[in-house]
C-alpha cells in the first residue's frame, strides 16, 4: 500500500541530510512501528510523507496505492487516504471543532467526486465516534485544539482519523504527553480503526504505547536509516537495554 524506496531528504534551508536511504513497505491491515532515538529522523519521515514545506527530497520515491506521493499536494495526499496524527496538533482560534471536521470531510469527498455529507448524517456519525473516544459535546463545539489538554488534543486527532477514514495512518509520537489512562483511550481508539484495508505507521520513543497498539513489525531508525527490523520483541529489547546497546550491535 505505502512503499518508501531509498528515501533521501535534507532540510531546505541548510545542507544537512536527515533521511539517508529509508526503505519501508506498509501493507494493508498491518501495523508497523518505528522506534529510534531523538534526532534519528522519525518525525521528518512523517512530515515528508504528508507534504510539509521545508524539506527537500534529494532521492528516492514514495508510492501510495500506485500513486507517486511527491507529485501530490498535501490535500491531495489526504484525499488519497494519507493521514498524519500530529505530535503537536495545531490550534485554530475561532473555528469550531465540528466546523473543521465537516469542512475536512466534505473537502475530501468533493475532491474524490463524491457527494457532500449532509448535516444530519455528519452529526450522527461524529457524535457516535466522539462518544467512543469519550469526547463530549462541549469539546466538539470549542475551537480546534484551543485550550485543549494534551490528552484532549491527541483524542481529537484520533477523532479526525475516525471521521476521515484514511487508508494509511501515520501516528507521530501520539503517546507523548499522555498519562496512562489517556494513552489507553487513544490506543483503544486506534485499535477500533484497525482493519484489513488499513495500514498503520506508528512512530514512538517508547515501548509502552506498543503494549496497547500491538504492532506486526518494529523498525529501529538511527541516523536517517532503518537499521533493524523485527517483531514486537524488538520493542521490548529497546525498553530493557536502550538504543545504545542495540545500535552498537548493529554497527
Amino acid at each position, binding site marked *: 500500500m505505502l512503499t518508501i524506496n531509498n528515501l533521501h531528504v535534507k532540510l531546505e534551508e541548510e545542507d544537512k541530510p536527515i533521511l539517508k536511504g529509508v526503505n519501508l513497505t506498509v501493507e494493508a491491515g498491518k501495523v508497523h512501528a518505528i522506534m529510534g532515538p531523538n534526532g534519528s529522523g522519525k518525525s521528518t519521515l512523517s512530515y515528508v510523507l504528508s507534504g510539509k*514545506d521545508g524539506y527537500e527530497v534529494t532521492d528516492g520515491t514514495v508510492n501510495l496505492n500506485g500513486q507517486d506521493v511527491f507529485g501530490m*499536494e498535501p490535500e491531495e495526499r489526504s484525499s488519497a487516504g494519507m493521514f498524519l496524527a500530529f505530535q503537536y496538533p495545531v490550534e485554530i482560534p475561532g473555528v469550531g471543532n465540528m466546523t473543521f471536521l465537516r*469542512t475536512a470531510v466534505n473537502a*475530501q469527498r468533493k*475532491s474524490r467526486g463524491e457527494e457532500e455529507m449532509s448535516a444530519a448524517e455528519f452529526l450522527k456519525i461524529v457524535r457516535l465516534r466522539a462518544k467512543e473516544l469519550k469526547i463530549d459535546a462541549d469539546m466538539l463545539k470549542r475551537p480546534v485544539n484551543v485550550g485543549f489538554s494534551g490528552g484532549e488534543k491527541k483524542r481529537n486527532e484520533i477523532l479526525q482519523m475516525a471521521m476521515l477514514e484514511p487508508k494509511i495512518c501515520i501516528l507521530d509520537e501520539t503517546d507523548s504527553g499522555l498519562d496512562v489512562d489517556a494513552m489507553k483511550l487513544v490506543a483503544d481508539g486506534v485499535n477500533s480503526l484497525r482493519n484489513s484495508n488499513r495500514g498503520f505507521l506508528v512512530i514512538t520513543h517508547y515501548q509502552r504505547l506498543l503494549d496497547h497498539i500491538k504492532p506486526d513489525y518494529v523498525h529501529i531508525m538511527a541516523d536517517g536509516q532503518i537499521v533493524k527490523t523485527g517483531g514486537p520483541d524488538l520493542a521490548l529489547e529497546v525498553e530493557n537495554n536502550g538504543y545504545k546497546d542495540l545500535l552498537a550491535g548493529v554497527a
Partner: protein
Amino acid sequence: MDSIVENVVVKDGVDQETVDAVREVGGAYKHGWSTDIEMEYAPKGLSPDIVKLISEKNEEPDWMLDWRLAAYERWLQKKEPEWAMVDYPKIDFQDQYYYARPKSMETKPKSLDEVDPKLLATYEKLGIPLKEQLILAGVDGAEELTGAPRKVAVDAVFDSVSVGTTFRDELLKAGVIFCSISEAIKDYPDLVKKYLGSVVPVSDNYYATLNSAVFSDGSFVYIPPGVRCPMELSTYFRINAENTGQFERTLIIADKGSYVSYLEGCTAPQRDIAQLHAAVVEIIIEEDAEVKYSTVQNWYPGDENGKGGIYNFVTKRADCRGDRAKVMWTQVETGSAVTWKYPSCILRGNETQGEFYSIAIANNMQQADTGTKMVHLGKNTKSRIVSKGISAGQAQNTYRGLVSMHPRAKDSRNYTQCDSLLIGDKCGAHTVPYIEVKNNSSRVEHEATTSKVDDDQLFYCRSRGMDEEEAVALVVNGFCKDVLQALPMEFAMEAQQLVAISLEGSVG
C-alpha cells in the same frame, strides 16, 4: 444554497439570466458587470448651477436649495484631508459627474411595478442576501423555502437616484416611514429640517460638506415612539455610470423606545478609472431606543495592480441623544480601492451604549483606513470596539480609533480589541488608537494583537484535505468570528463567503 434555488419554480417573466445569477456563488469580483441603461447626466464639474440643477431635478423646496448652496460655499473653503494612511492620485473634482439617473426615472414611478425591469434585474443580480433576492426576483415558493415569511424592506439606490422601496404600505401601517430622502424632503419636511445635518454638521469635514451640497438621494427612516420596526430595513447602493460620484445621504431617526435593524449593501461595476463615493449617514436615537446598522461593503476594489476601484470616503455617525439609547455598528469592508470611514457614536444621554464591530479586508493594492469614534458625554455610558483587520497582497490596513471620555461622562467604560492578521510578507497592518480621558472615574481598556496566518495552521488544514484557499478562508473566518456573530443572519452567510472570495489568490 444551490439546492434552495434549484427547488423553486421560476415565475413567468423572470429571465434565465437572473436565475443563473442567483445560482452563481463565488468567482472573482462577481459584481463587476455594468448595466446598459440610458442615463441622463448633469454636465461635468461642480458649480452653484450644478447644485441648483440637482435640487431642481429632485423638485426640492427653497430651504433645501439654500442649505445645499451654503454647504457648497463652505466646501470651497475647505481642504482635502491628508492625515489618513492612504495614498491615491489627486481627485479632480471638476472632472466628475455629480448627477446621473436612469432616463426611465424622469417621471418617478409610483410603485415598483413601474420601475425599468433592467434596473430591477440589476438588483436581482447583486444577490445580497439570497432570501430577499428570491422574493425580489419573484420566485415562487421562496418564502416557504426560507422559513417563516421574514420580510426585509428594500430601498434601492442606482447611481444618484432611489429606484424603489419595497413594503412601504405595510411599514406605514406600523407608523414606520421608509422612503428615499428626496421624497422625505417633500413629504416630511418638518422631520428632515429638524434632523438633517444635526449629527454630521454641514461643515463637519471635506467629504461631508461636499455631500451636503450635492447629495442626490439616499434613504430616510423614521420609527415612531415605542414601535419595534416589524422587518429589517435595507438599502442597496449601486454605482453604475462611469465617471460618476455617488453621494447618498441616509437619515435614520429612532424615536423614544423604538427599535430598528438596518442593512446596507454596496457594489459597483469593474471600471479602469477610479470612482468616487462620498456618503453621509446620520442616525438619531432618542431615549430608550435602539438602532443596529450593518454594512456589507463590496465596492469594486480595483484590479491586482491597483487600477480602478472605488474611492470610498464616508462619514457615518450615530447620536444617542436620549438616556439609555443604544447603537450598534457592524461593518464588513471587503471592497474599495481606498476606504476612509469611521462610523462613530456620540454617547450624549446618560447610560447610553455604543458598539462597533468591524472586519476590514484589504488585498492586492487596496488601502483601508477605518475605525470608529466613541465620544462619551453622558454619565455611565459604555462602548465596545471589536476590530478585525486582514491584510493580504500589498495592501495597507489601518485601524484608527478615538475613545474620548468627557469630564461629565462619569463612571463610563470602554473596551477596545483590535486584532490584525497578515497574509504574506508584503502587506501592512497599523493600529492608531487615540484615547482621551478627562475624568477620574472612567475606565478605558485597549487590547491589540497582530498575527500572521500561520504556515502550521495552513498545513494542518491541508493535511486534512482542504485546499490552500479553503484553508485560508477557514482560518480567517475563525479570526473574524466575534464580528461575524454580530451580523444579522442574512448577512453573516454572505459575509463569510465574501471573506473567502476577497482573499482568493492571496497565498501561494
